[in-house]
């Protein structure tokens, strides 16, 4: 039904797409796989009308398809759900679904017709019971995504493109999304599903297409594909071990958290983190994992309890003091919190210890640049140089810079919130190796992740949070994915 042949696109000197071909039949789910920078986003931007290709042919239902704008694409039958949700958070669910396509007569909103259409779109997704009058901002991320999909369905699309739809969902919400996708498929809607998570693609997709460096390097039936084969196609090399094993042995405790509570979520969490230990925190989104890290670091108020870095007397501290005690925090949100996008790599790397780059309050930009150059080399950061603004770099590269800030400090205790979210497999492996090496050199790492194989592959100890409480802490060997999920969903709480 949809055919792309030899699509090419350049931005200035960089050739983003060198010849991409792809086929999609009616009622089929196609997984589009590739590392960051492989050209997936550019391809989808072309399909959804956000930019024009330099060459190649696109066909929809046997007719040439050349959308000049997103409106064009939508009326042609191609709708896109972006990774970042685009809702007007102050408007209601119904208003959001009908935004730009209101049922109206001479400018007067026809209430009953609006209600019926919004209801119908939600019912198509199996969410017919959703409260239409609720403010979108008051809905969970998963619900907001449903609203966004419902809005796309209003135009009766033939092809629905979803870009990393599960990146901010919990496992349970992701399951619900998969059933929505399967439902759409049975109604004859074709879906292009972009994801970094291979097992997800195996779950929902019928076929796959792998992009690498702007070219199609392989495609086929999802059922016959082995993950190792897909990884090899994506990276161009065999990925033998996703979680490189490094020798490390937990030593003495370096951080003690006792009954830490912080309104509104975190309730009486206790843990002890040892040097040379990788401690994983699992749990659903909203279970209080991020809150625990932020409270430890002093970004959120510690309402009750104690957080003590061994060797320093203070049991509640500001972020400034935590850095001095050797604690570093990496935010889960690179864009909003982790990095200053319009400032240089060097500034971003050294912000937490600026005064040490000069005397009497001055800062030597040469010394800053030298520090940055060292990490660029050590971590293999792909950039033009220490003065390049980080906003111009890819997600994986940005993540390395955020991590390098902690290394540069240098921190002894690493608090890492979703360190591999939204980055490509190659960089993920590098970050896993780095975390392993940190533990190997006696550093303590506390890592939050929603990706269970990652926690099980990486950590020595895993704690599962549920409804603001740290419900269970056990060595990795005593955990399975199912076991973690049971505790996380509150099905079994044991201490």
């Amino acid at each position, binding site marked *: 039904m949809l055919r792309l042949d030899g699509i090419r696109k350049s931005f200035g000197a960089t050739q983003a797409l060198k010849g991409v071909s792809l086929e999609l039949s009616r009622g089929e789910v196609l997984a589009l796989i590739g590392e960051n920078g492989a050209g997936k986003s550019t391809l989808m931007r072309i399909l959804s009308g956000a930019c024009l290709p330099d060459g190649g042919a696109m066909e929809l239902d046997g007719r040439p398809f050349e959308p000049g704008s997103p409106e064009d694409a939508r009326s042609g039958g191609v709708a896109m759900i972006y990774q970042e949700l685009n809702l007007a958070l102050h408007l209601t669910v119904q208003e959001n679904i009908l935004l730009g396509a209101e049922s109206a007569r001479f400018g007067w909103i026809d209430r009953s017709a609006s209600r019926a259409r919004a209801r119908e779109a939600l019912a198509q997704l199996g969410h017919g019971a959703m409260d239409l009058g609720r403010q979108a901002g008051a809905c969970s991320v998963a619900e907001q995504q449903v609203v966004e999909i419902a809005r796309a369905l209003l135009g009766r699309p033939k092809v629905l493109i979803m870009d990393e739809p599960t990146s901010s969902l919990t496992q349970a919400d992701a399951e619900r999304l998969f059933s929505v996708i399967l439902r759409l498929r049975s109604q004859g809607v074709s879906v292009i599903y972009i994801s970094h998570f291979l097992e997800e693609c195996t779950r929902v997709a019928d076929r796959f297409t792998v992009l690498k460096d702007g070219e199609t390097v392989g495609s086929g039936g999802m059922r016959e594909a082995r993950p190792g084969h897909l990884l090899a196609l994506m990276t161009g090399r065999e990925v033998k071990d996703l979680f490189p094993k490094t020798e490390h042995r937990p030593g003495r405790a370096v951080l003690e958290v006792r009954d830490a509570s912080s309104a509104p979520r975190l309730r009486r969490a206790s843990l002890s983190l040892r040097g040379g230990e990788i401690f994983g925190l699992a749990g659903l989104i909203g279970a209080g994992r991020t809150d625990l890290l932020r409270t430890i670091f002093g970004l959120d108020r510690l309402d009750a309890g104690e957080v003590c870095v061994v060797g320093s007397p203070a049991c509640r501290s500001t972020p400034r003091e935590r850095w*001095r005690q050797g604690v570093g925090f990496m*935010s889960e949100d690179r864009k909003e919190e982790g990095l200053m*996008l*319009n400032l240089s790599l060097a500034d971003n790397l050294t*912000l937490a210890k600026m005064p040490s780059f000069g005397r009497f309050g001055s800062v030597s930009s040469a010394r800053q640049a030298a520090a940055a150059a060292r990490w660029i080399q050590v971590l293999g950061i792909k950039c033009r140089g220490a003065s390049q603004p980080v906003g111009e770099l890819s997600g994986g590269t940005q993540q390395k810079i955020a991590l390098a800030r902690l290394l540069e400090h240098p921190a002894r205790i690493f608090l890492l919130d979703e360190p591999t979210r939204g980055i490509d497999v190659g960089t993920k492996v590098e970050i896993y190796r780095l975390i392993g090496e940190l533990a190997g050199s006696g550093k303590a790492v506390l890592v939050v992740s929603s990706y269970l194989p990652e926690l099980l592959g990486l950590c020595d100890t895993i704690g599962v949070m549920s409804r603001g409480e740290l419900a269970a802490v056990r060595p990795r060997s005593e955990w399975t994915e199912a076991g973690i999920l049971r505790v996380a969903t509150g099905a079994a709480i044991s201490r």
Partner: protein
Amino acid sequence: MSVAIPPRLRRLMVRVGPFLGLIAVIVLFALPGETRGYFLTFHNFKIIFIQTVIVAIGALGMTLIIISGGIDISVGSTVALASVVGALLIQRGWSTPAVVLATIAAGGLVGLANGAAIAGLRMTPFIITLGTLGVARGAAKWLGDNQTVNYDSSPINGWMTTANPFAYTLPAGVWVALGLAVLTAWMLRCTVLGRHIFALGSNEATARLCGIPTVRLKVLVYVLGGCFTGLAGLFQLARLRQGDPTVAVGLELDIIAAVIIGGASLSGGVGGVLGSMIGALIMSVLRNGSQQMGWPTYFQEIIIGLVIIAAVFIDRLRQGRKA
């Protein structure tokens, strides 16, 4: 607008854009017959420089505030307040250094109030400074008993003098503005304080995460800005030779325009002293040139309004369209 401007070209535009603007307006006024003989003389530029001092010093403070992600629209009123305070103190026979310090402190206090309210109570800078705009203007009128405050004489009067127009010397005000500009540029580029101000404006959450005391820093930025405004008030006093509570209405718009023309972004994290100073010069050249062309004041106002809109539009072009 799907035209993607390559980053390198965009950065070049940011750097040389204000220069080109300045050259353009100078050429514009140097060519017509009415002004050709006079416009490009040292004497005229001396006047332009003197006319720029107040906006330039105000723009230094505003540059800090805008880079930090804030805005201060109370500047005009604060200038008036500082000038009235200065005049009253001269009347009372205070020594010149004491008057200078007190005027700067008056501006600094208004800045402290702004900063404390914005950082401490987490309120929007625009609203808070809109409030102080009224408060400071009222206080100036109250102190001055609703009229201008006159005094016999003071050495301060000489700092902005245009007497002796054909001497090849510049009055103190110009040198002070120039010196402070160099100092501020150095501070922004090469000190921890300066880099932290950029960080604060670029992403406040990151700054907090990296252990920068954001509340204290924000208050400090507004206090520094207020001190610059107080000093601008002192030169306002020197220029009029009296304290006038009704002076400098709308001055903040000229100052903000100068900073934006100079390449700063209203969303924070971007900006520079050199750009702001050129922006201030562009504003003065426009005023000076329009006067010499014999254009009526309403026409000048329209032109300057359009220039501000153009500057903001160029700012948008520079930033590109972010998806």
